[in-house]
């Protein structure tokens, strides 16, 4: 098999000094499925962005078909036969499949766009590669699995020879994943090189021919799949055997802290994204909400945090309604909130660590001096203690947050939320996109807070490992409703959970039992 791509000694440093790739070597052959694995922040996405012309790099070289290649932009990359399927699809929902597939290369005479030719081209390529889609359907009416096929078709129509798939199975159901794998293997037979980025080692073992492992921005090694097993790859990825299991004692739930009753939310597009859900959380327990993203979990978090207002229903914290209360009042009632999007809702990137941690408590009388001024000495001492306790890697407390790495920014946020003295913690995707060490620390702290301090915790996460390991009880949301309730999250299998998440199964109210 001929070598199609060679990336040699690629080095990428972001303007904030973060070195995402250090002398990375990556070689892909024609007609192979090559897995690129590594934990979050290992530099996989950066490397692929470089390959796809989205990021420049400071050192190293790239060869296509053995010839030096300079890829200056995604357009250039497409020209050179590289296609990329992003985690977030690049599509126009209001247009049809055919229009999306031919976007930018529209067939027709002059300024006229010939829809029939577009549909024919789409159908031909779809038939050829067994990627069955209906060219005339609007993207907005398609499910995630089909939309992903459209994304692959877009690359194929542009005659790509290297196809990059960035965590393609993250949004898919197990059944859709199976289907995707069959199609990818068909593409491979046609000589297309596929770069498959994933965290899921079973998938890598099943699908791929070779594996390249990145760790902390460096290449750890490349090997054929026959020489590897999941344990070996995982050791290469993290450099030690990760204890993915979180040890915890059984919960001893006490008083009800959070009560949600018949909660409804209507979004800007007038869709009922939260449709009459009720549940409760008691002191000392962690309740997880699982679900495919976009089924109302994020709205539940924002409703409880007071960021958006419900269309109906009530939310009570320790028996008191949060209706018409300001966010500060709700926080004073004992809520801490780790939001999903840390750079938008979780921190002020240009301000120092100190200001970021003080943000939720700056008005507290605890930090006053002479009535009016802040007690700087006390603040500095507490901030330094938190930096040490949460092992935030930084120069000092006055360093702007934007200069920290993603994991350390999240540490700043959890340091604030975990130290606010709250008895209700709302953790919305608390470990998304951060390194294993920080992830482990955050998960352990969530459990410790619940067990030792009797905190009631609501955990929303699309990381199944996290939601199953950390939660005591587990709820599943689908289309804004609760469709399943498990009394013991540790006894739930991922397959079963997947079926509930995808709406294949649904519990009756009797099966769910009491949701408190």
């Amino acid at each position, binding site marked *: 098999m001929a070598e199609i791509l060679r990336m040699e000694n690629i*080095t990428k*440093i972001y*303007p*904030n*000094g973060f*070195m995402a790739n*250090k002398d990375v070597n990556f070689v892909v052959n024609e007609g192979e499925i090559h897995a690129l694995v590594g934990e979050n922040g290992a530099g996989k996405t950066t490397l692929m962005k470089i390959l796809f012309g989205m990021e420049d790099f*400071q*050192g190293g070289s790239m060869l296509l078909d053995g010839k030096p290649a300079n890829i200056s932009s995604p357009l250039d990359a497409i020209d050179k036969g590289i296609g990329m399927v992003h985690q977030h699809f690049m599509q126009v929902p209001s247009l049809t499949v055919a229009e999306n597939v031919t976007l930018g290369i529209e067939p027709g005479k002059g300024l006229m766009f010939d829809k029939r030719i577009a549909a024919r081209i789409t159908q031909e390529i779809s038939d050829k590669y067994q990627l069955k889609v209906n060219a005339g359907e609007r993207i907005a009416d398609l499910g995630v699995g089909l939309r992903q096929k459209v994304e692959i078709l877009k690359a194929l129509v542009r005659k790509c020879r290297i196809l990059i798939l960035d965590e393609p199975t993250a949004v898919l159901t197990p059944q859709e994943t199976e289907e995707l794998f069959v199609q990818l293997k068909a593409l491979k037979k046609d000589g297309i090189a596929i770069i498959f980025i994933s965290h899921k080692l079973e998938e890598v073992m099943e699908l791929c021919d070779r594996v390249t492992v990145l760790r902390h921005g460096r290449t750890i090694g490349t090997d054929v799949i026959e020489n590897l097993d999941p344990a070996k790859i995982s050791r290469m990825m993290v450099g030690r055997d990760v204890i993915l299991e979180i040890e915890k004692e059984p919960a001893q739930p006490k008083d009800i802290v959070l009560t949600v009753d018949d909660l409804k939310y209507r979004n800007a597009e007038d869709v009922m994204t939260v449709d009459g859900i009720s549940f409760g959380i008691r002191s000392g327990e962690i309740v997880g909400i699982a679900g495919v993203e976009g089924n109302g979990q994020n709205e539940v978090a924002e409703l409880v*945090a007071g*960021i958006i207002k419900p269309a109906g229903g009530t939310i009570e914290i320790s028996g008191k309604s949060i209706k018409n209360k*300001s*966010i*500060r*009042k*709700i*926080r*004073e009632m004992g809520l801490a*909130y780790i*939001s999903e999007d840390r750079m*938008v*809702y*979780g*921190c*002020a*990137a*240009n*301000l120092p660590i100190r*200001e970021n941690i*003080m*943000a*939720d408590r*700056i*008005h507290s009388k605890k*930090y*006053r001096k002479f009535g*009016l*001024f*802040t007690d*700087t000495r006390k603040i500095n001492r507490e901030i330094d203690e938190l930096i040490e306790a949460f092992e935030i*890697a*930084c*120069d000092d407390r006055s*360093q702007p947050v934007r*200069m*920290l790495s993603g994991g350390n920014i999240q540490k700043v946020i959890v340091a604030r939320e975990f130290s606010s003295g709250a008895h209700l913690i709302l953790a919305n995707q608390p470990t998304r996109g951060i390194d294993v060490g920080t992830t482990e620390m955050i998960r352990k702290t969530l459990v410790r807070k619940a067990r030792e301090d009797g905190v009631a915790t609501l955990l929303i996460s699309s990381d199944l490992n996290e939601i199953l390991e950390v939660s005591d009880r587990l709820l599943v949301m689908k289309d804004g409703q609760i469709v399943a309730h498990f009394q013991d999250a540790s006894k739930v299998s991922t397959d079963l959970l997947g079926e509930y998440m995808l709406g294949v199964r649904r519990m009756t109210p009797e099966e769910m039992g009491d949701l408190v």
Partner: protein
Amino acid sequence: MKETRRIEFIFEIVRILAALVIAYGVTLLCIMLISDNPGEAVYMFAIGPFTSKRRFGQLIGKFIPYLLTGTGMCFVYASNRFNLIGEGVYLMSGCMVALVATQFMSPETPHMVFILVLILVGALTGAAFGSIPALLREKARINETVVSIMMNYALLYAATYLVKAQMYDTSITYMASEPLPAAAKLTRLVSGSQIHAGIFIGIAAVIVTALIFFRTPLGYSIRICGSNPKFARTAGIGMTSSLIAAQVLGATLSGIGGAVDIMGIYDRYMWTGLTNMGFDGLLVAVLSKKNPIFVPLGAFLLAYMRTGAAVLNYTTEIPIEFVDIMQAIIILLIAAEHFLGGFKEKYIFKATKSKNKEAAKNA
């Protein structure tokens, strides 16, 4: 990471210096092109402000109100609101000070009392008019920039009306108020110059603003709201009150600026056009990177440039507009985040790489 911060800091300094050099270069080039005696013109422009007590006094005379409007605009700029009411309240405060001093106070009032009352008048005028665009913005979501710019003209003509209707001095040939009583004037610190006691008020404003910024809950709130409003809201910071406070405090300081300027330099109120002092306050805030501690530097720099332009204007045939070109270039270059950004990234890259190499060697 420490290295990164050091490089960022050095580049901030280098960038400002480079901006100055380029702007001066362009201006000097223009001077040489149009002047019959470029050597003289360049000298007047660059060294002129320091050649006599009177000229240096003129510089300080501008520096003092810049301290006040600059710190005021720091509040507005740090809260990320583009509220320019500082321009309008500056002259309205001057007008109210003149009105109170000439119409409502006895010339026999003790000096210190007189001064304190007039500064209070300036501050209240600033706060009162400054609260209008602030309240409209935060309570009714009406664009503060539009409101404040329209109000600036309303305030200008209202002040002119007040002069005509209430305190017009018919004994002089131009339109101005009656003269201020001697007790209402700030003491000249150096005779024969415009250096007056207002400088202490300016310095006090810098200190108080820095304290509010970095040592009070309000300062924390304003900076967090200005830096990331969505985060401020999520963290439970009272956005509306913080942002109104920032804009009103900013206008208050501009108001004090107008009052101090009238009491320090002028004999009577005579502004019949916008003074530009409020807008200049924004330039000072930009030059100081919205940090009140750097306001004295920014204020001095701008006062120096403005004075150099004035000296050039009355010693040579070069029009003052040329300096506006230079100022525009400086502001543009300092405000543009990416000017020299490529160099900075290269240096950070080099530093990080060499650090990694060392680490590899040690390991």
